[in-house]
């Protein structure tokens, strides 16, 4: 119907195919992800990092915390990324850092997604006081800049990697809650929900069976986009000394060491590049996913 509506009215020529009706950007959005160079790059980079994280002990030339070389050696043939102020091989430490950052970021996002979407869906579905309480708390969190609140939480709980993870969860669930709430609100009054109630479904069942599929897609896109953010926040906390503690090989903490040894550019650069590539790759994938799952938004953005 909609395709037919958008067809030109002059019917002299053979009806043009749908393909010709779409302009270039639309077609780019409909392309499978493996034909979109950015998404492809992102995917490959993430894949590479996952492989590195799994096989770090095999790939790294040295254990991450062994100190047998001279401190602050510039990159050489033996130490590809140089050594840090304690004589540890930076290359090995960057590889090992992936074992920490990637799983933690994934865990973080999964937990925030679970908490946020459950609370948000409840708020949207039950409305009234439930809605008010949950969303006011979310607003409270939104009112602070994310990193500041995370800092406060991490500082209050004590500088530990586990507390940093908790802190990031505390600041990141509200965005899921807000999205889930708006999606549920939009679908709640639809006739198929009424119909489900008429067939005797309970509230929870409606939430799970009827509303779940409507909410899942956009939330997953947000989650993918958010993995990069989580990596960044976590590294940020570690950089500020509130996350991973020495001698743990963590990228943020390593960049922090680089900031203290400013003349040895390699100390901070390589872990920084690691963060950059991971965050960028996740953002590429998230963008591509959004275009695929939600072509309407993509078109509205006029890309």
């Amino acid at each position, binding site marked *: 119907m909609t395709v037919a509506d958008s067809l030109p009215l002059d019917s002299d020529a053979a009806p043009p195919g749908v393909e010709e009706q779409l302009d270039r950007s639309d077609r780019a959005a409909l392309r499978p992800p493996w034909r979109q160079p950015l998404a492809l790059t992102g995917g490959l980079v993430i894949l590479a990092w996952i492989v590195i994280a799994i096989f770090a002990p095999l790939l790294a030339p040295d254990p991450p915390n062994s100190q047998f070389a001279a401190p602050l050696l510039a990159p050489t043939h033996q130490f590809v990324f140089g050594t840090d102020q304690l004589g540890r091989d930076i290359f090995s430490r960057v590889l090992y850092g992936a074992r920490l950052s990637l799983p933690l970021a994934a865990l973080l996002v999964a937990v925030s997604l679970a908490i946020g979407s459950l609370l948000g869906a409840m708020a949207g579905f039950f409305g009234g006081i439930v809605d008010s309480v949950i969303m006011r708390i979310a607003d409270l969190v939104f009112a602070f800049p994310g990193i500041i609140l995370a800092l406060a939480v991490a500082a209050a709980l004590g500088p530990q990697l586990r507390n940093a993870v908790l802190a990031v969860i505390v600041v990141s669930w509200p965005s899921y809650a807000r999205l889930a709430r708006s999606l549920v609100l939009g679908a709640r009054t639809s006739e198929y929900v*009424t119909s489900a*109630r*008429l*067939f*005797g479904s309970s509230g929870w*069942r409606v939430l799970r*069976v*009827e509303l779940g*599929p*409507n909410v899942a897609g956009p939330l997953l896109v947000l989650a993918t986009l958010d993995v990069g953010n989580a990596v960044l926040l976590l590294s940020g906390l570690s950089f500020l000394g509130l996350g991973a503690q020495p001698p743990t090989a963590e990228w943020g903490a390593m960049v922090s060491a680089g900031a203290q040894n400013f003349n040895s550019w390699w100390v901070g650069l390589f872990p920084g590049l690691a963060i950059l590539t991971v965050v960028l790759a996740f953002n590429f994938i998230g963008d591509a996913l959004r275009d695929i799952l939600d072509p309407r938004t993509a078109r509205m953005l006029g890309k």
Partner: protein
Amino acid sequence: MSTGTLLEVEDLSVRLRTARGIRLAVDHVSFSIGQGEILGIAGESGSGKTITALSLLGLLPGGSRTTGRVVLDGRDLLTLHRRELRSVRGRQVSMVLQDPMTSLHPLLRIEVQMTEHVRTHLAMSKDQARERALEMLAAVRIPDPEQALASHPHQFSGGMRQRIAIAMALACEPRLIIADEPTTALDVTVQAGILSLLDQLRRERGVSVMIITHDLGVLSSISDRLCVMYGGRIVEHGVTREVLGSPRHPYTNGLMQALPGASGTGVPMRPIGGSPPSLDDMPSGCSFHPRCDYAQVSCSSKVPPLRPIGGGRLLACDPDPLAPDRSEPSSSGAATSVPVPDPLAEQVP
């Protein structure tokens, strides 16, 4: 046809909370449905038909209050606990909604939608529920039930979707199906198919059906009895043939004359002037009096009671201008000069 009363509604009133306060949307409505009977409820939008139906199953929007009695099988549905009520919905009483384009979930396969409530209500396994779904799809004459189960709603036409919705409603073998404007969103040709399907199901399975519609033409073909509602009240009630053959309430008469089919009798289609009153602005007395051709002064002050007028018919109109003994104009000529069109093509005076 009917072998006993299935549902007895007594004195049902519904108060809705609107932006401007609490309003009486359904005003002391009583009716009953026999087993295997088709009851029609007719009236314009806003006359309280759908609210009546939803209130039977306790599915009104928040802040509304329902009083009266709704007795199904000796149990008053209005007093049931939430959980008990859930076991009635879909199991004893099912509902088919107006627009099959929106009443089916667009993202779920038909199988998921059709087996969900069967599994909860009848404690069936996945396979049993699937068997049941196939059987029901065949009963509503869906060509390829296996294929249909694996499809999504958008792959079907409107008529097919309404058939699927009816199959869903049938799946737990309910005693009563409430069909809220089941054919309004469909083509006229498809309408006939859906109506004859409902009629067939009633005959084969003994299901009672309550059809809500604004289209008297729909009711004339299948319903046994008929309630005409206006402004939240029942204004005329009786056997469908008799009510439509000789409407006594001016509103029923107006609805009949507004039927396009009436033009076939040579009488031009004649709409009822004005529009139905809103809940916020309900006229005093008989709520139809501002639009009534026969209104008298007393109509605006006194609510006419629903009283028996013989032959099992009930009427809520005090002047009763359309009574047969007044069919020859005595003093007020305007009262009966318009012949009543008859969709059943029985003897036209």
